[in-house]
């Protein structure tokens, strides 16, 4: 139980924003959390550890209720399985996400999103020669709920209905994956395929609760949960989940 409470505490986040009525915000965020990865192209063991994500975002909302949001995230961290005692595996996780939503009621907004995300992992103990990756470009719906189920509480949920995905190869050779940017870039876009929600499930859920707000500053608890499950034909199954806390500094432009 203590462990669960500790995890729950970890789920929380503190978010500060200045101003409630601004139409545009530019934000810089620092998020910390826990990640689990299960890469069956490697061995299927659960690797877990810490993740740090720095994010830069821009939001704009018009008086008609149309809202644009662009978010650039860069995550990195280290993970290991229960069997390992040393040398953590490392990963990089950049993401660019754009969403467009429209308010259909005071508490509900709907729309769509477009994103590009990379996850590149070095399982140093298990495979010192090859990289493992999930690359996805996604298109899907977004649902945002404000003041639900409580006042000052908001929920955002999205998932892709179409995705363009590149996954780690099934068969590996003695060719060592080069560490140069151009070679990695080619690798993480290789054998890409277009797929749907049936084969590539990437669920994103964000809970946000405003603890304190004033004219200038908001103090929020925020929890992000992301679950990815890839069943692309010809590749091995991949699953991951991320839970984050964060500190977000926002600057109102208008």
């Amino acid at each position, binding site marked *: 139980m203590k462990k669960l409470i500790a995890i729950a505490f970890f789920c929380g986040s503190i978010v500060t924003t200045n101003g409630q009525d601004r139409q545009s915000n530019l934000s810089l965020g620092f998020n910390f959390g826990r990640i*689990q990865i299960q890469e069956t192209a490697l061995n299927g063991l659960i690797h877990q550890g810490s993740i740090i994500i720095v994010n830069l975002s821009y939001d704009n909302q018009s008086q008609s209720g149309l809202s644009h949001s662009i978010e650039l995230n860069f995550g990195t961290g280290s993970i290991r399985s229960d069997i390992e005692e040393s040398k953590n595996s490392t990963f990089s996780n950049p993401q660019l996400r754009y969403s467009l939503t429209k308010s259909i009621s005071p508490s509900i907004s709907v729309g769509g999103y477009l994103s590009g995300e990379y996850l590149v992992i070095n399982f140093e103990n298990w495979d010192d020669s090859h990289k493992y990756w999930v690359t996805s470009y996604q298109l899907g719906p977004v649902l945002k709920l404000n003041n639900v189920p409580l006042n000052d509480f908001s929920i955002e949920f999205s998932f892709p209905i179409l995705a363009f995905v590149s996954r780690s190869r099934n068969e590996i050779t003695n060719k060592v994956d080069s560490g140069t940017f151009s070679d990695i870039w080619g690798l993480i876009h290789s054998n890409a395929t277009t797929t749907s929600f049936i084969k590539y499930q990437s669920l994103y859920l964000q809970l946000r609760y405003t603890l304190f707000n004033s004219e200038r500053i908001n103090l929020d608890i925020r*929890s992000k949960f992301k679950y990815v499950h890839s069943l692309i034909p010809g590749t091995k199954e991949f699953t991951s989940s991320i839970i984050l806390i964060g500190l977000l500094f926002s600057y109102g432009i208008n």
Partner: protein
Amino acid sequence: MKTKIITMFLFLAVSGCLQEMDIKLPNSGYSPKNTGDGLVLSTPELENINVTILGKVYSDFYDQNKYPTIRSLLVLKNGKLISEAYFKDEHDMTKPHALQSATKSITSILLGIAIDNGFISSAQATVKDFFPEYVNGEKGSITIAQLLSMSAGINFNDETDTEEMINQRANSIKYALSFNLKFTPGTGWLYCDGNNQVVSGIIAKATGMTLEDFGKKYLFDPLSITNYRWEKHRDNTTYGAVGLWLTPREMAKIGLMVLDKGVYNNQRIVSEEWLSISTSKQNPVKEYGFNWALFLNYGFYASGHGGQKIYVFPQNNLVIVTTADSFSDNGIFLKDIENIANIIREASVN
């Protein structure tokens, strides 16, 4: 209100936990299957191996929490396959597996065959005899024996230079010979992949065949080894240090041939003299022959990164083959694999 929020976050935290999956197959024993591939089958009892000890080794390898990278274990006594098991994937029985540096031992056998057939005069032939354009001075005097015994002294660093050779360089042999000498040839120990790339080049130049083609004609075909592949560099030189893929059973055939002093199915494959030399101490400072690691006085083995092994114990008439995840760190996951081989050896009653 706070309780509701905490409940919500708790739900998220719990739902974020993935479920562990088994990385090994259920324990299905270790009785070998008759596949018609030429291996003769027997049982541990008939060949005098302690079943309790052998069963414990297999049981440990099946254990989900031990030896996470081990893939197969085959034991052959008196020329017969008495036990085999595939711990992660039953298809491993017929699927070629990367031998990593255990490839070097096969390169050594093929060098011996090249000498036996008169393509190369002896292991004392020098690099300069074959590649005068790439070497001069002291480096030119490096012998094949020194290349195979890791006493050549060429300062090739496997940690960085193997990747460079494989991925970047147009001429792998020229690159392998481009490094300065760390010590006078024949006086020290410097294990490196570059040596065997040069040996592969020497065999190709002397025989007019790539190492792979030469291996097919003189080793693989006679042993009925058909399910293999051998990677090559873009300059068409077969990798001499790594890159050979064999099934565990094919590895076992090579072990049996070496155990039988170069004979397989009554056919001479390589001379007894070459095997005797190459499996005895040839390096001045290490227990190492010609690409064979040595157990002092009682055996030798081919050894590849991750845990690819062909152990040969002549006094016990015993061959043990292991395969493991080919690119994993056996120093972490299989650090006592040599001890396990010796436990099986000690369980083998002559």
